[in-house]
């Protein structure tokens, strides 16, 4: 078997090299965020002698990190919570009540998924702007509106897999429909709830375009917004900008490493459905 073995080592070597192309951009950002201005200029590819962690402190203050982090967290949790409740309830209704109305809702949801956000962004913004309702609350509402269609379709698939006899059994035991939904059916699809939460959180946490139009004001900045304006301020000071980048990436990468397996299955599931 020597031939097979050498083939295996060869493929490991090749893929390690390809993997390096994926790791190195992150590494280079991390390396240069721990330097002085001169070090970045002299050799951006590797460590130089002027090692310090002072950039992180400056970037942390300039990004107003604690505050923007809380804003991002508030918007993400608010939107995802609302999306989960609304879409689960809607999908339950259309999966149990058969009729033309249910299938119309289902196809409307499937159809709206095709519409790019840029096609509806201008009227959406001008309507919300006319009634002077552009703040974190309206951002949560918009996020919900934009994300429910995919979530409803995902939940619909999951509810179809829950046998109707379960509903009937709960009804026989004296549970009214809302109670059946909350205590019996909703817990039965908790893997799908995980998927819906993860997919929407990733999208909303990283979103820039919509927040930049809605909450681009003092005190409401999310992390991507703040990062963008901070980057503009530090144009010639790469080490500061990169320290800011590292800070902004830490929360999401940390969370990913914790929930790795769940995130990966959720993402593929969301794509295939």
């Amino acid at each position, binding site marked *: 078997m020597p031939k097979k073995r050498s083939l295996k080592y060869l*493929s*490991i070597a090749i*893929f390690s090299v390809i*993997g390096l*192309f*994926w*790791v190195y*951009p*992150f590494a*280079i*950002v991390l390396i*240069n965020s721990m330097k002085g201005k001169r070090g*970045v200029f002299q*050799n*951006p*590819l590797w460590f130089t002698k002027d090692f310090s962690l002072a950039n992180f402190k400056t970037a942390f203050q300039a990004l107003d990190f604690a505050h923007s982090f809380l804003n991002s967290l508030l918007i993400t949790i608010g939107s995802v919570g609302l999306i989960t409740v609304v879409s689960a309830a809607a999908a339950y209704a259309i999966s149990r009540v058969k009729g033309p109305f249910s299938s119309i809702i289902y196809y409307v949801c499937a159809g709206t998924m*095709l*519409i*790019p*956000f*840029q*096609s*509806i*962004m*201008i*009227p959406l913004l*001008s309507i919300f702007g006319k009634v002077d309702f552009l703040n974190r609350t309206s951002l949560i509402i918009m996020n919900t509106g934009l994300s429910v269609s995919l979530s409803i379709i995902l939940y619909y698939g999951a509810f179809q897999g829950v046998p109707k006899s379960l509903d009937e059994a709960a009804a026989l035991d004296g549970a009214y429909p809302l109670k059946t939904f909350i205590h019996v059916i909703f817990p039965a699809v908790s893997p799908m709830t995980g998927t819906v939460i993860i997919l929407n959180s*990733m999208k909303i*946490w*990283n*979103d*820039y*375009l919509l927040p930049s*139009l809605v909450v681009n004001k003092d005190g409401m900045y999310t992390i*991507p917004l703040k*990062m*963008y304006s901070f*980057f503009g301020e530090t144009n010639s000071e*790469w080490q500061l*900008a*990169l320290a800011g*980048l590292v800070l*902004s*990436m830490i929360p*999401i*990468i940390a969370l*990913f*490493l914790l929930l*790795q397996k769940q*995130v*990966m299955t959720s*993402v*593929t599931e969301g*794509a*295939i459905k």
Partner: protein
Amino acid sequence: MIVTSSDNRFNKALRTIFFMPNLIGGILLGFIWQFIFTSAFKAIGSGLHLSFFNGWLSDPRTGFWGIVILFVWQMSGYIMLIYVSFLNSIPQNTIQAARLDGANRRQILFFIKLPQLAPAFTISLFLTLANSFKLYEQNLALTNGGPYRSTEMISMYIYNTAFVNFQQGYAQAAGIILFFCVTLVSFLQLALSRRGEN
């Protein structure tokens, strides 16, 4: 990419690494690559005495390829996961049956695995197309449309017309055209791929 389907520790680590860029928002990715294309490429270029690496983002053509590279870097981990999940769902006994019939590894790959992967191709193509039409943040953070608006993509064009030049009606018209383009391309692609699958 197809090789990474078998489960061992090395492959799992690779999958995590490839997937990483997909977690991070377009703005941050754009900035990371702006640093690479300006500072790191300059350092490589002067180290190797090659002018090839100079000023990638200040040239319209290479600026465009910069966005392409960034997009590939971001999406490939995601697309790879889709292929992996399809590969894993191919029943083992089909492969064993083929092996009993005397098929070698290459034949198994081309005649057994690839045909069963056809739906995965459809999905990946669909996702990549849809996402590239919506590309905005990477565009903004990497080149901001420059030099001379040469790398301005459709989404950015709509944004700039509406909120920088304040021609909202005109921008909305562009938005509607974008919608028709996306719909048309998606349906065409789905129809063609479905035919290819059979």
